[in-house]
């Protein structure tokens, strides 16, 4: 079974802190994604990556950056956390391009105080 693992289920950080959310997949998938999920807004794409060191902005990249130094790991970085970044963050991976299913991690509930 494909496994997508997010490093933390719950995180509490202070405003202004630099925050790292880590995601690891174990199936050699090319594509990896970061979404945030808020009530009534669905899943919104922050960034995605289709290869090591390759990244593209999604629909809401402001205030975030990403890193993909190894194929299996995709990190989401909040350079200076703000309270409006309090959310559920979901990582996903898929084998290649747009015609293969995506597998999701369990999510990280981030609270910025």
């Amino acid at each position, binding site marked *: 079974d494909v496994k997508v693992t997010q490093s933390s289920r719950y995180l509490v950080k202070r405003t202004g802190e630099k925050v790292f959310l880590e995601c690891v997949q174990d199936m050699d998938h090319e*594509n990896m*994604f970061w*979404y945030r999920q808020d009530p*009534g*807004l*669905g*899943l*919104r*794409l922050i960034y*995605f990556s*289709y290869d090591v060191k390759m990244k*593209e902005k*999604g*629909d809401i990249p402001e205030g975030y950056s990403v890193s993909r130094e190894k194929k299996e790991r995709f990190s989401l970085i909040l350079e200076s956390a703000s309270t409006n970044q309090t959310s559920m963050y*979901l990582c*996903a991976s*898929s084998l290649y*391009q*747009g*015609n*293969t*299913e*995506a*597998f*999701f*991690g*369990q*999510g990280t509930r981030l609270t910025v105080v």
Partner: protein
Amino acid sequence: QQPVQSPQAVILREGEDAVINCSSSKALYSVHWYRQKHGEAPVFLMILLKGGEQKGHDKISASFNEKKQQSSLYLTASQLSYSGTYFCGTVSGAGSYQLTFGKGTKLSVIP
């Protein structure tokens, strides 16, 4: 840009049918459907590729009208286990990697 899903929410009694719609303003290469139960990760249901095919998965099936950039998810003879939030995800272009989801449709099946 997120695809548009309708309805936002629906309540069904066991055994009833439902249709969830998904539409996009962009030309689509593929449409994905996922279901998320409360407190869990979204789980894949099916993918429909450009070509207008219809797929089935137990009593859940879907269609894709590429001319209208629309997809519909059909749930027949609903069961309690069908409850959850359904998301459609869209990919525009055969060479694209970007998977964009809608706001979701909350489905509640009651006895």
